């Protein structure tokens, strides 16, 4: 029972500054993605993998900072979310390439 007890740990780690910092990183990642597409700075073949990679990083950041998902404390939640992501990716790939 992973979530049986209310967590009593200190909340010092949960500062506004930390969240602002990760927000800044997200903005930078987004800016890179937009720049990669609108300007000629990346070889054309690399653009799509690059921006999808950036999106994936951003999603992980949302999960683990903004959404307070903790690998150790919420093992089952993490399992379910990642299974969902895996099945989602399968759906996208199948619809794109098998249709």
């Amino acid at each position: 029972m992973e979530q049986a007890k209310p967590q009593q740990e200190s909340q010092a780690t949960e500062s506004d500054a930390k969240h602002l910092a990760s927000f800044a990183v997200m903005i930078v990642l987004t800016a890179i993605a937009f720049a990669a597409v609108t300007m000629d700075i990346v070889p054309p073949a690399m653009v799509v993998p690059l921006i999808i990679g950036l999106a994936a990083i951003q999603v992980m950041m949302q999960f683990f900072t903004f959404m307070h998902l903790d690998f150790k404390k919420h093992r089952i939640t993490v399992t379910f979310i990642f299974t969902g992501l895996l099945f989602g990716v399968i759906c996208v790939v199948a619809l794109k390439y098998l249709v």
Partner: protein
Amino acid sequence: MSTAELEQAKTSAKLPPHPERATMEGRNKILGLWLFIGAETVMFACFFGTYLALKGSNLDGPTTQELYQIPMVAISTLILLVSSLTSVLGVLGMHQNNYKKMMLWFGVTVLLGFSFLGLEIYEFVEYVHAGHTFAGSAFGSAFYTLLGTHGAHVLFGVLWISGLLVQVWRRGMSLDMAPKFFSASLYWHFIDVIWVFIFTVVYLMGKV
């Protein structure tokens, strides 16, 4: 925490640390919302897949290259990313027992959500004038279904958070409200996550 303590916490202004997980009800709610997010992920994946399969079928309508306007997308993205930050600041406010801060940031989130929706409607109107309509082609249908579903989620999220704000405004903060705010903010982040993929897969890849 014993039942008596919980009863007391329900009425007092000072909530326990991590109030959203202090009750079984709260833990269930948060877990349930996470599971729901897992399900929604797969549903959106299906819409993304459909969009990818059909994005070339624009018939007489404009292509993705002609249609999408990057500056507008950039503004939408910025609005939604900032709203994600404001909603997490609201949650932090709740954790710090600072309910003014919580209300303020969630209020800002609602405003940002509405401005995103306004921008999206404006964008759709532009597209329709450009000949990109829902029934015009398979591309149009897939595009508006994906974006429209996301927009509907934004609308629901905005209404949800507004409802919670009204509740706190009328009755004051309580232990019951904590998981509700926390789940609403989870939902809001999820909407943002979907948008990250929308601007990547729909808009940016439509320009590559």
